[in-house]
């Protein structure tokens, strides 16, 4: 798994490339939290278009970030998830907390529409 971080206003955008499982989630969690803290961010978007595999560990990690961010009044969203990743989100009913958008622009519009 490879992670790339981008900033847009107060939103941290994380592009995930490769496989998300229990093993790689350690890195995903650690690096995301570190980057978020460093930038003094408010919102997070996970760009998942290049995720080639994800199991339920991915759900746990994303919901974990949601819990942290929600306390700070921020928002979190997923963008570009493929059909497979989307199916796993649907099974866990995660979308009620963390919406999933077909592209980055829609995801940005949602997270930045949150309260200041």
């Amino acid at each position, binding site marked *: 798994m490879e992670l790339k971080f981008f900033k847009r206003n107060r939103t941290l955008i994380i592009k995930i490339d490769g496989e998300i499982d*229990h093993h790689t989630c*350690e890195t995903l969690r650690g690096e995301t939290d570190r980057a978020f803290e460093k930038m003094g961010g408010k919102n997070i978007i996970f760009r998942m278009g290049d995720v080639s595999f994800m199991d*339920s560990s991915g759900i746990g990690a994303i919901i974990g970030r949601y819990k942290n961010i929600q306390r700070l009044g921020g928002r979190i969203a997923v963008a570009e998830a493929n059909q497979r990743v989307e199916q*796993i989100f649907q099974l*866990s009913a995660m979308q009620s907390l963390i919406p999933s958008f077909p592209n980055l622009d829609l995801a940005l519009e949602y997270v930045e529409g949150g309260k200041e």
Partner: protein
Amino acid sequence: MEYQNAFRVFFAAKSQNEALARIMTAAFLSQYDPTLSEITDVKTAVSEAVTNAIIHGYEEKTGEVELFCGYKDGQVYIEVADQGKGIADINQAREPLYTSKPELERSGMGFTIMETFMEGIRVESRQGEGTRIYMVKTLTTE
């Protein structure tokens, strides 16, 4: 059962071997002309079961995970076993969103994913002795 082909491996209960288990399963399966979606279904189920053995069975301590894949008449048979802690209440464990380790950010969706992506799943477990998961999937044939 007489399988037309099968393999059984044992590997250390280390998280980097989750990917190894998926690769071995996919390589075995690919001999039987599965669809891409069937490969992903079985890989995801194996990943869940192996992860459970490592996190819950052995609680991330040393141990050995067993993976079996068998093929017979268009069906794939999977077994994942550990000799770890065992499951006290199997019905509760299989409930969607139930996890005994929320502090590790588990989602409680592992069994639900195994049930959704495979056709049959059977759980054998004894406290203090370990857990064995049996799963089956029928491959589509043209």
